[in-house]
C-alpha cells in the first residue's frame, strides 16, 4: 500500500514573526475562483460608483484680476507658471503650486487681446487694444526697477491675437490680416490676407512648424504656410469659428470652436468633411485647448461651463461648472496632462483636475495596482447598462439642462421634418447629408 495524505507544514504558510509580511500563496486555478464574471461585474460597478464619489475636480481659484480674464498662456519650461491677461490691460503671472500671483504688470490700455510665451520661456509677447505688440521679460525687474517692455511695436491696426513659432524667433499676429514678424524687426516679414474681414485667432502648428491656421469673422478657417506668400486654403462653415487648436501629436488634425455650439475636428488635407463633430455645449464655444497627449481636448463656452471631449467621440466625457463661474473665455490644459485652467468673465482663473476622480499626490504601489485594476474593470464592463448609466451621469445647472433639452427637441423636430419631406418626395432627390458635412459650406483653395 502506498499512501500520501495531504499534510501542510504550517511554517510554510504562517509568517515567522510579527514583523514579516503575511504569506499569501496564490493558485490561479479557475476551479478555485467561481463566479468570475459576476464578481468582476460587481467590482466594476463598485469602482464606477467610487469614481463618481471621488469626482471632486475643482482645486483652486486664482483671484486677483480686476476685470475679466481674456487670455492665458502656459510657460513652456515651468509647469507651475501660468500667465494671464485681463480686460483692463493687466497681465499677471501666477505660481500654481503656491496658488498666488507672483507678478503684475500693466501691459496695455484696454484689453489684453492675446498673450504668448517664447519657446525658450525667457520672455513673452502681448497684444492689446492700444494697437501695440509688446515683448516682456519673464523675470520681473529688480527692486525699485520699473516694469518696462523689452520691445514695443506700434501697429497701424488693432491686433486680436498672437502666437509664437515653436522653434524659431518668429511670431504671428492677427487683426485685419495675418502678420508674420521677425522678433528683431519692427515691421512684419509678410502679411497674409484673404478677404477683408477681421481675423480673431491665429495658431502655429506645433509639429509642422511652418503651418498656421486662423479663423476669421466671415465664418472661415484659413490655413497658411509661412514659406509661401499666399494662404493655402480655407473652409467656410455655417457660423463663425472663434478659435482653433492644433493637435500636438497629429500634425494634420486641428479642432475649431464654433459659434453654433459645436466643435469641429478637421483633417487639414480633407477639409470638405470634418473628422468629428463634438456637440454638447448649449452656447457658443469660445476657446479650445488640446491635452499634451493629443487624445482629448478641453473647451470653454459662453454657457458658463467647461467640457472635456475625447478627440474621437462626439460627446463630452466631462463637464465642469460652479455656481460662481460666469462665461468662460479662455481655457488651457497644462503640459503635465493633469490640470485644466480656465479664465472667466468674473475675474477668476480656476484650476481643475483633468481627471475628476484622480487622487493627487504620490500613490503607494498597492494603491496604484488597485487603481489600474479598477480602471481595466471599468473599461471591460463599460457597456453594461447599469454601469454606463452611473458613469455617464453628471449634474448640470438648471439653465444648461433646460437649454440642452430644448436643443434636443429642436433637433428632433428638424430631423422629423426632413424625414417627412423625404418620405413624400421622389426617392433619391433628397440625399442624406451626414452631420460631419452638413455644416461645411465650401472649401476654397
Amino acid at each position, binding site marked *: 500500500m502506498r*499512501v*500520501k495524505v495531504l499534510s501542510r507544514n504550517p511554517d510554510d504558510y504562517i509568517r515567522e514573526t510579527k514583523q514579516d509580511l503575511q504569506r*499569501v500563496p496564490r*493558485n*490561479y*486555478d479557475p476551479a*478555485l475562483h467561481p463566479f468570475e464574471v*459576476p*464578481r468582476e461585474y*460587481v467590482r466594476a460597478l463598485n469602482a464606477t460608483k467610487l469614481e463618481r464619489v471621488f469626482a471632486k475636480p475643482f482645486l483652486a481659484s486664482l483671484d486677483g484680476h480686476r476685470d475679466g480674464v481674456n487670455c492665458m498662456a502656459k510657460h513652456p519650461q515651468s509647469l507651475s507658471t501660468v500667465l494671464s491677461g485681463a480686460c483692463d490691460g493687466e497681465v499677471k503671472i501666477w505660481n500654481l503650486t503656491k496658488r498666488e500671483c507672483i507678478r503684475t504688470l500693466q501691459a496695455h490700455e484696454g484689453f489684453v487681446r492675446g498673450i504668448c510665451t517664447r519657446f525658450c520661456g525667457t520672455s513673452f509677447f502681448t497684444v492689446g487694444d492700444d494697437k501695440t505688440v509688446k515683448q516682456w521679460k519673464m523675470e520681473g525687474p529688480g527692486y525699485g526697477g520699473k516694469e518696462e517692455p523689452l520691445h514695443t511695436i506700434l501697429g497701424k491696426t488693432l491686433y486680436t491675437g498672437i502666437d509664437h513659432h515653436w522653434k524659431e524667433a518668429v511670431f504671428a499676429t492677427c487683426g485685419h490680416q495675418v502678420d508674420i514678424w521677425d522678433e528683431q524687426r519692427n515691421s512684419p516679414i509678410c502679411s497674409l490676407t484673404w478677404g477683408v474681414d477681421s481675423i480673431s485667432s491665429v495658431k502655429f502648428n506645433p509639429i509642422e512648424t511652418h503651418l498656421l491656421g486662423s479663423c476669421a469673422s466671415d465664418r472661415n478657417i484659413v490655413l497658411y504656410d509661412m514659406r509661401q506668400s499666399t494662404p493655402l486654403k480655407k473652409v467656410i462653415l455655417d457660423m463663425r469659428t472663434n478659435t482653433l487648436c492644433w493637435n500636438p501629436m497629429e500634425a494634420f488634425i486641428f479642432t475649431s470652436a464654433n459659434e453654433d455650439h459645436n466643435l469641429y475636428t478637421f483633417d487639414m488635407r480633407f477639409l470638405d468633411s470634418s473628422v468629428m463633430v463634438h456637440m454638447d455645449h448649449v452656447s457658443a464655444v469660445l476657446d479650445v485647448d488640446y491635452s499634451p497627449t493629443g487624445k482629448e481636448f478641453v473647451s470653454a463656452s459662453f454657457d458658463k461651463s467647461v467640457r472635456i471631449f475625447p478627440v474621437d467621440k462626439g460627446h463630452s466625457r466631462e463637464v465642469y461648472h460652479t455656481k460662481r463661474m460666469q462665461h468662460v473665455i479662455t481655457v488651457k490644459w497644462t503640459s503635465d496632462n493633469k490640470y485644466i485652467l480656465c479664465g472667466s468673465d468674473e475675474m477668476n482663473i480656476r484650476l481643475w483636475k483633468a481627471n475628476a476622480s484622480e487622487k493627487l499626490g504620490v500613490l503607494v504601489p498597492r494603491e496604484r495596482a488597485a487603481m489600474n485594476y479598477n480602471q481595466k474593470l471599468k473599461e471591460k464592463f463599460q457597456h453594461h447598462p447599469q454601469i454606463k448609466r452611473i458613469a455617464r451621469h453628471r449634474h448640470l445647472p438648471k439653465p444648461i439642462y433646460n437649454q440642452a433639452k430644448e436643443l434636443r427637441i429642436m433637433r428632433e423636430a428638424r430631423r422629423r421634418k426632413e424625414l417627412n419631406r423625404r418620405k413624400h418626395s421622389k426617392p433619391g432627390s433628397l440625399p442624406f447629408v451626414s452631420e460631419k458635412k452638413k455644416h461645411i459650406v465650401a472649401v476654397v483653395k
Partner: protein
Amino acid sequence: MMSPLGLHYGAGCRHVDWPRAQSPRSMIGCGGRERKNLARSWRLHAVQALRMEAVAGSRAHGGSAGGGKKKKMTKKLQRYWEGPPPPDTPAGAPSKAKRRHNEKTRPRAGAEGSLQARKVLHGSEAAGQISGKRDPFPGAAPLPQHKVKKFQRGQKSQLAEVSSQRLRDHLALLEQKVELAVQQAARMELLLPEEPGFLEGDPGEDTCTIAQADIAEAADIASATKHFELTLNQFGPYRMDYTRPGRHLLLGGRRGHVAALDWQTKSLLCEINVMETVTDVTWLHTENMFAVAQRRWLYVYDNQGVELNCLKRFNGVLRMEFLPYHFLLATASETGFLQYLDISVGKEVATICTRGGRLGVMGQNPANAIIHLGHSNGTVTLWSPNIKEPLVRMLCHRGGVRAVAVDSSGMYMATSGLDRKLHIYDLRAYQPVQSLVLPVGAGHLSFSQRGLLAATCGEVVQVYRDVPMQPPHKPYLSHTLPWTAHGLRFCPFEDVLGVGHGSGFTSLLVPGAGQANFDALENNPFRSRKQRQEWEVKALLEKIPSELITLDPGQLGQVDAITMEQKHHERVERLGFDPQAKPAFQPRRKLKGRSSAGSLLQRKRKVANEEQRTKIRKSLEQQQAAEQERKAAPRAQSSALDRFRK
C-alpha cells in the same frame, strides 16, 4: 537549421542580471509577478547547469580548440551590452560562421519585434563569443497543451468577421494579452508547493479493503491525527458542516447539542444545548457565525454560542445551504417553502412555494448557486431566487429522492433514491451519464473538491472515484460506522471526510479528496484574525446580488445580441435609413469608352452576381455540414417513429 542559439543564451544572460537587480528581501513576500520571475529563473538555473555540462563536455573532447578560446577570453572580455564584436577578430572562418548564425537568428528574433527580442539578440552575440555552442534547449520552455487549456476561457474572437480595422487591431491586441496571461498562469503551476494525496493498493489489493487505521498508520503523524472519532451518544444523530477554509467544524445533534470547534487543534469554540430539536446546522460566511434550524424557527449564533438572531419567518426548516458569494442562506422547510435570507443585511430575498411537499433533500451547485431540491415523487428541481417556478424539473428516480449533490465544477449531479439507485447526471445536457445500484441505497451524498463522491448506505460510508467517467464496480474506500450516518461533508483543502452519525462524529482519511493548493485571497485555512477581517470586508464589497443567479453565470460577460439587434432596428426606424448598411456598388468611371451604359450595367451585374454566389455557397456549406453531422451522430435507439422526423 533553425538556430535558436540566441533565444536561449539571451535568457541565460538575463538571469545573470537578476540577483543583482533584485534583493532577496523583495522575493520573500512576492506576489504573482515575482513568483513568475522566480519560476523562470529557476528554470534557467536548470538550463544553465545543463549548458555548463555541455560546455565542459566539449572542452574535454577538443582540447586545442578550448585552449584557443581561453586565450581569446583572457585577451579581452566581450560583454553583450558592448554591441557586436569588431570585424578583425582572429580566425576568419569561425567568425564567418558566427556571423551566419547571427544573420539567421536576426529575422527570427526581430519577428517578435519586442524589447525582449532585441535583448535576446544581443545575448546571442555574447553567447557566441563565450562558448560557441548551440543551445540544446531552444526557445521558451515547452508548455503542455492540457495545462494551458485549464486556464483558457471562452472562445477566441473571430477577427476575420470584424469589419473595422481599428476594432480588429484592438481585439488582436487583447487576444495577445489574454494568451500571455494564460501562459503565465500555466507556468505558475510549477511553483505550487503541495501535491495532492493518493492511495494505491499493493498488486491484487483493493483499496476499499484498506482500513482507516492502516491509512492513519501509514500516513505521517500530523495526518494520522485527522482520523478521529467523537463519541457523543447522548444527543445524536449529528448533522455537521465545515467552514469554507476547512478549519472549523460545526456539529448539531438532533436532541439540541450544538458544538463548534477548530477540529485540527481540537479546541472548542462553544458548546451549547438549545433545548429543542435541531434539524440542520450550517456555518455562515466566517467561523464567527452559524445558523441552526431548530424545531420551530431558525436561529443564528455567534462563535461563543450567543444567540444573535431568531428568524421567525423561517419556520420548520429542514435543510439549509449557504451561498457564500451571494451571502444568501437558502432554507427548505417542511411545508414546501424555499426561502432565501440575505445574511449581510438580514433581509428575506425570496420566498418560493415549491409545491413539492416536505423538502428534506437539498443541495447547491457551487458553480452557479442554483439550489437543487429532491422531492418524494422522484423529481429534482432547480431553483434560483428570481423565479417562482423551477428552472428545471428532472425526473430522476422511480421512488422518492433521498440525496442530491453537485460537484465543484457544477457539471455533474449525483442523486440517490428510494429505488436504491445512484445516478450521475450531466447538468449541461440534463442527461444521466452513469447509474449504479447500491445494496441499501445512499442516504447522503457529497462531492469532494477533486471529484470524489462519498455515499452513505446505512452505517457504511463508501467513496467512489471518477464516477462521471466510468461506472465504478468497486468503491475507492469503504468504512463502517458504529451507527447510521446522518450528515456527510468533505472537508475543503484536506483529505478528510466528516461523517455525523447516531453516536457522534467520525473524521475519515480519504487521500486525494482535497484541493492541495489553496488561494489565500479566496480561502486561507491558515489565515490570521486580521486577514479574516480584511477578507470579510472585501467579500462583502463584492457580494453578488441575488438577481445575478442564473444557470450560466458567465452570461453576464457575453454580448447581448438580442438587445443590440432591437436597438439597431429602432435606430433604423428613427433615422429612416440604415447607417450600417453597405452602400450599393457604384462602378468607377473608366476611360476610353468603357463606361458606356451597357458596360456599366454589366459591371454592376457582375458584382451583384458575385455577392449572390458567395451567399449561396455559404448556405450550401452550412447545409452540408448539418447533413454530415446528422449522419455522423450515432442513432441511439432507432424508433419506428423516426421516419416522421425531418
